[in-house]
Every structure is written in structure tokens, then in C-alpha cells.
């Protein structure tokens, strides 16, 4: 099939950026979306045009590196699918496809379709972990975990940190990502001792970088791993509780 791409080009953080049009001729329906971009990039290179920078690594939908807006939808038209798993079967001859980077205050531009998502790491550094020094853990079967609890935690842990939820949100909020990361740890018995400090510090750090959540729900629809909005409810409840609990805990410490 022959397609036309409208691609966002931006030479660096300081550049204003603009759309450019490129033909993508002779594309096979078996190719993945990113393989289509590879081909366009090789052709651009031979024409003397700098190839389009885009992020990707595993190309299996698990590392969360890829992610672009395709015709206004994060990760493109297929539900529950990361950009790298989208295949050209989704398109027909003559289509024009518009490709843009994630746009959000929390994700500054780096180049073309690549943005800086390090703010996610700053949130994890503030409390998205369970403290345990290597070698100090008790036997793994000392604490049985009901199967449903482990499965529920795993549903949240499936988040790949791609940032599509932020890109989809009209406010540029990161609630779904933070809720997924928070819930994974806080639903497990091992995550209880640090639960309330975790809630408070992750949310407070999130607010330094991202907009506020007003329950639009666009994030859930965009998420390639179908992370549920229910986790946001858990995060919000725990955050409110954490405020008075942490004060009390601090008081106890003396």
C-alpha cells in the first residue's frame, strides 16, 4: 500500500517544530508500524534527509520505550496495544497518517518524536519501592499471599511506564501511572510498612511535574496494558489518609 506520513520534526528542545510530509510507498500489511518507520528512515537517509528520531527497544510491547500519537491517539488505533505492536494491517492504501510525540508539561521535548520521561523515575525515587537490603529477606514462603491479592497486584504491576496515560490526559496528569505503581506495592503484605509514606511522597512528587487529575478517564482508554481506573481510587483514598496517618506516625516517633 502507498501512504502519506505527516510527521512532527523538531531538531531539539529549543526548536519550535513543524509537520513534514513524507511518502511511504509499497508498505506491506505484515510490517509493524515501526518497521514502516524504519523503511521511511532508510529512504530519507538515502535522499539526504536526516531520519526521524523515535523511541523503541523491545518491539514486543513490554519495555515501554516506544510511544507516539498516531492520528491523535496514543499508541494508535488498536486498543490495548503499544505502538511497536501495531501492524500495518490497520491501514489501507491511500491513507494519510499523522505522527506526533507525547505532548505534556511533564515530558519535555528531546527531538522529533522523542520526549524526556524521566519525571516518572523521580516519582519512583521518592517512594515507589519496598526497602530491603540484599540478603536480609526472610524465606519467601514465610508470608503466604492470597492468590487474588497477588493477581491484583500483578494487574497493577503490568504498567510499562510508557506515558500514554499522560499524553492522553487533557490536564497532562500522571495519575494512572502513579496509581499503578503505588497499588502494585501497597496491595502486597510486604508493602504495608511504608504504605503511608509512599502514598504521600509519590503524590507530592508527581504534583511537581504533572497536572492534576479531574477524572476524565482518557488515560484508561489509551493504556496499552489496560490498567484500570480503580487503582486511581485506591491511590486517592490512601493519599488522603496518609496525611493524618503520617502526622500521627511522626508524633509517635517523638
Amino acid at each position, binding site marked *: 500500500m502507498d501512504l502519506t506520513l505527516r510527521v512532527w520534526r523538531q531538531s531539539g528542545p529549543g526548536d519550535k517544530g513543524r509537520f513534514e510530509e513524507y511518502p511511504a510507498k509499497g508498505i*506491506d500489511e505484515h510490517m509493524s508500524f515501526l518497521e514502516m518507520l524504519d523503511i521511511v528512515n532508510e529512504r530519507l537517509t538515502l535522499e539526504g534527509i536526516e531520519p526521524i528520531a523515535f523511541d523503541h527497544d523491545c518491539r514486543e510491547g513490554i519495555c515501554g520505550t516506544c510511544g507516539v500519537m498516531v492520528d491523535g491517539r496514543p499508541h494508535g488505533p488498536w486498543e490495548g496495544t503499544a505502538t511497536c505492536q501495531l501492524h500495518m494491517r490497520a491501514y489501507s492504501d491511500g491513507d494519510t497518517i499523522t505522527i506526533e510525540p507525547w505532548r505534556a508539561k511533564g515530558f519535555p521535548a528531546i527531538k522529533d518524536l522523542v520526549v524526556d*520521561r524521566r519525571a516518572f523515575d523521580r516519582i519512583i525515587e521518592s517512594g515507589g519501592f519496598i526497602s530491603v537490603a540484599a540478603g536480609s529477606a526472610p524465606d519467601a*514462603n514465610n508470608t*503466604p499471599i492470597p*492468590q487474588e491479592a497477588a493477581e491484583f497486584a500483578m494487574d497493577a504491576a503490568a504498567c510499562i511506564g510508557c506515558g500514554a496515560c499522560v499524553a492522553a490526559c487533557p490536564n497532562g496528569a500522571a495519575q494512572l501511572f502513579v496509581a499503578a505503581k503505588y497499588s502494585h506495592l501497597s496491595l502486597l503484605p510486604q508493602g504495608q510498612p511504608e504504605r503511608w509514606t509512599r502514598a504521600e511522597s509519590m503524590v507530592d512528587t508527581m504534583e511537581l511535574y504533572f497536572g492534576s487529575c479531574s477524572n476524565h478517564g482518557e488515560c484508561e482508554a489509551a493504556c496499552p496494558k489496560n490498567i484500570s481506573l480503580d487503582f486511581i481510587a485506591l491511590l486517592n483514598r490512601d493519599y488522603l489518609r496518609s496525611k493524618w496517618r503520617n502526622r500521627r506516625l511522626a508524633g509517635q516517633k517523638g
Partner: protein
Amino acid sequence: MQLDAKIPAGPIQDKWSNYRFDLKLVAPHNRRKFEVIVVGTGLAGAAAAATMGAAGYHVKAFTYHDSTRRAHSIAAQGGINAAKDYHGEGDSIYRLFYDTVKGGDYRSREANVYRLAEVSNAIIDQCVAQGVPFAREYGGLLHNRSFGGAQVSRTFYARGQTGQQLLLGSYQALAKEVGAGTVELHTHAEMLDLVVVDGRAAGIVVRDMETGEIRTHSAHAVILATGGYSNAYYLSTNAMACNGTAAWRAHRKGALFANPSFTQIHPTCIPASDESQSKLTLMSESLRNDGRIWVSKAAGDGRAPGDIPEDERDYYLERRYPAFGNLTPRDVASRAAKVVVDEGKGVGPLRNGVYLDFAEAIGRLGKDVIEARYGNLFEMYERITGDDPYRTPMRIYPAPHYTMGGLWVDYDLMSTIPGLFVAGEANFSDHGANRLGASALMQGLADGYFVLPYTVAGYLAGMLGERPVPTDHPEFEKAAAETRDRLARLLATNGSRTVDWFHRELGKIMIEHCGMARSEEGLRRALAEIPPLREEFHRDVRVLGDNESLNQSLEKAGRVVDFFELAELMCRDALYREESCGGHFRVEHQTPEGEALRNDEDFSHVAAWGWEGEGAEPSLTKEELEFEYVELAQRSYK
């Protein structure tokens, strides 16, 4: 050069505890004075950086990824082994050790493998405590499955996402240390050279991938945990950015490279669909528990699978290996697939696959059971190929997957350059000529959480009072200048072909001649074809853009340069090793039935190669392998 593996004395069960008892320790208040560089933040690197940061050392961690949550480790599906014996099947540390040495076709070092098995249980404890949501039974205890032909269930897993969950565990542990300021983190930072001063590893040269700035960093010790080199084949199951540059640059600075030709080809991957294919997708090995592998008995059969009657099908694994059938080990299953495809019996539009058929299992167990077991894999397959495996058999073919070879290390995981340690897939240490399923994750975390924190400390203890070499030392400036020149040359060539074109051509040579079956003739041909291709690359590659902003073609070009040299060494090693063992199959060395024939008499050693300069023959040093505990036997799966 003489290679001393520094294996501690004593019975194998006591070696690691004796070693730790004899270790010189660094007192907690002195640890801050030591700087340690960790390159790579996959399972091995993140675990090492987090643990050493928490212990109080001054750690600097580097990764070319934008975040430490995104190493190739994240893609591992199947699981991680440990000798817990939670299910009372008679598993033990000794059995895991034995299985790993045997599975590696007797080409690994007993003492290292024993230690790996010994610390395996602590890994599971550590991960559970960190919040890794492993699969559980109804009673809430941990579930296990058997994997990759093991006769016990010792594999722990988290759905089909074990690597992801383990990496998130070590990523979070590392994030905690970054937040606490014990680890200084550099992301989008690619190591492009190692700096050696007075024979010791003194630091690294790093390119900031967003600004192009070349910086140098020094430390008392350098740890490389930079992953494997399967992408030398261009098409592999590895993530797109995986490369051999860090290890190769260290090799050029004096670190010996061991058994480079020991690579693993995984039998169940989705075949390539055309030239534009950029990588191959692994389908979990667990599918072989219920799927039957077959091709038509007739070459060039154009019929749809459903139109081929039972008696015209060849279930070749069941026929050749009645005892193990579709569950023969990876290397055996992969080679058998190559045989039938080479005979013209391949299936699919490009005739480059074999069928993996679930019709019989669906008939026997019902669609629901199959869906519960493999639903997500079937869905992934359909997304990629557009075919529905419930109705038509899957098509699979082997693909490069893992590299057992790597930088040579001793018992301390130290390379032949003092102060340079190597962990995870990047070293050669534990898997011999073939890695068992679910053992790479175990090894990466063993190295990072439980081995390096001791062995690196032992090295540092001897350096108390010494400061790291300052980065204005001439060796640092020289290495940085050379790196800048290399990049400038790549940008200035402005030839007529893309980096990917060269990488694809190299990959074709490698898979053809240094893949599943290797012959003297083929390897000689590869060794004749690679140098001219490399020279053409340097003359005719086109890398656009500049060094001063994100430039993905420039990054790739640098990695492909190193793949050329590494690929040559892989072929040379394969040519040298006149035997078939594990993933290394030389057609000249096989039994009359076509099975691999080892040559223990002449090749029971590690082949460690030294860099002697561009265009010069590499030097060979051998480490003889001694087997005191495991009895050498021919592997048989009949």
C-alpha cells in the same frame, strides 16, 4: 598469558563460605571513600548498583536507556530458577548445579556454577520481599513450573512477564538509592571506551546521547553489566539497542573474550515475514508442552496445513527423539528444524518455518484449557501474524537469543584487567556451551545482589587510602580524543548506504555460517567476507545529522563497527573449536545419527581470545576445565 580462575580451595559445598570468611572487608565508614562505576542497569547492573550503594560505596551508574526501568532484561517471559524444592520433588542446590553443568554440555566452571545454585534461593527471598508478584497457589504459597526440559518444577514466574517484574524490583531498589543520593545516575549515557591506567581499570569514556558531549569518569573499580551480543546476527530476539560495544571496547583494552562462538538459538520464534523485518519475536518455550511440531513429508508441498492428511505429515521431533519428543532441549530442537527447512519442507509464504500445532491438544483438553494456559501468547501471535492459532497451526523457526560467551572472568567475576568486573550476560561464566531456560535471570541477579558486593569489596580493601586516577590523566584525555575522532569520522564519511544495510548484510553472513550449524568451509567463507564488508562500511556508510543532538544513526553506526570485529572473532572461535557442544554444532563432528559429538580430549577448555591490534590475529589462551564432581557423559534425548 596464564589464566588463574582463583577458585577457592576446599570441597565445592564450602568454597563460597570459605571465600567470604577469608575476604578482606571494608569497614562501613571507609566505604564512602571508594568510587565504583557500574555500566548497565539491567538485572545484573541494577542489582549490583543498588546493593553497593546501600552498603555505602559511592556508586555511579550508567545506561544508554532513558530510564533504568528499560533494559533488555524486561523482555524475559518464562521465569527464574531456584533450588527451593518447595514441592518436595527432591530438588537441591546440588541437583541445580549438576543440571546446569550438564545442560551447558560440560563447558562451564564447576565452582562458579555451584555458587550460582547456592545463592539461587536467596534471590527468590529477596525478590518476594521487594514485592515481585510471583504466581501463587490457592493457599497463598509460591507456585512453580517445570521449564526447558528440567525434571523438577523449580521455575518461579510472574505471568508471562517474569523479567519485567524482576527488573522492576531491582529498578526500584536502585531508585531508592538514587533518591537517597548513594548512587549517582546517568541515563542516556553510552559508554564508548574503557580507560586503563598502569594495567588497571581506571574509568570510562561516556557520550551524553542528548548533547553529544564526551565525558570521562574515573573510579576505583568498573563493573560492566552490559548484556549479550546476539544482535551481531542482526535478526534476534534481543531488544533493538542491545549491542556488544562495552564488552568489545574492554576487549580492545586487554580483557580476554571467552568462547565467543557459544551462542544460543531459541527454537520457538515467529519466522521473518520479509526483508524489512527488524527483530524476531520469541514465543514462550512452554508452548512445546502442548503443541506438536511437524512439516509435510514432501518437499515443496504447497497445500494448506488442514489439507495435509495425518499420514503425510512428519512429526520429526517425535520421530527422532521418542523419549523427549517435542520437549527436546533448545539446541537439539533448533537444529532439527533447520534440517527440515533446508530439505525444502519449510512452511509459510517464505517456506522458512515449521508448524507448531495445537489441534490435538485442543481436541483432548478443550479450547478453554488451552486458552487458560496460552491465551496471551496466542493473542500476541495473532497480533503479529494475523493468523488465529486456535484454528490454524502456528509457524515457528529458531532465532538467535542468548550469548553464553562473553568477557572472561575469574571466580571473583573479575576480567583479565584488574579492577574490571563483568556480570550478567556480558560475562562467559556459568552456562558453558548452552544455557538452560530460566537460568539467565538467576545468574544476573546472583552476580548483582550476592556475588559482586563481596568480590568487589575484596578488591577495594587493598586500595584503602588510594584516590581514583584523576580524569585529567593523559590516558583519559587520549581515550576521549580517540572517541571524538571515531564519531567525527563516521559523520564525515557520507557514503551511499545506510547503517542498517550493513548490519543486515553482516547478519546474513553470520546466521548462514556461524548460526545453528557451522562448517569449516562456511566459517572460512565468513572470515573472507566480513573484512571487505567492514572496509566498505568505513568507506561508504552514510550517517546524517550531527554529534551535538540526539542522533540514533550515529549511535547505531558505532555499535555496528564493533559488531564487525566481534563477529569475526565469533567465526574464528567456531572454526578453532573442532567439536560439537551445546549451541555450537560443527557439521564435521556428529554421530552417524546426526547428534552433536563432543571432543573432551582436546576441547575441555575455555578458549579466551586476546586483542592484538587491528588486522592482527588474536591470541589464544586456554583455561582447562576440571570436573571433580560432575561426570562427563554424552547428552542423549532419544
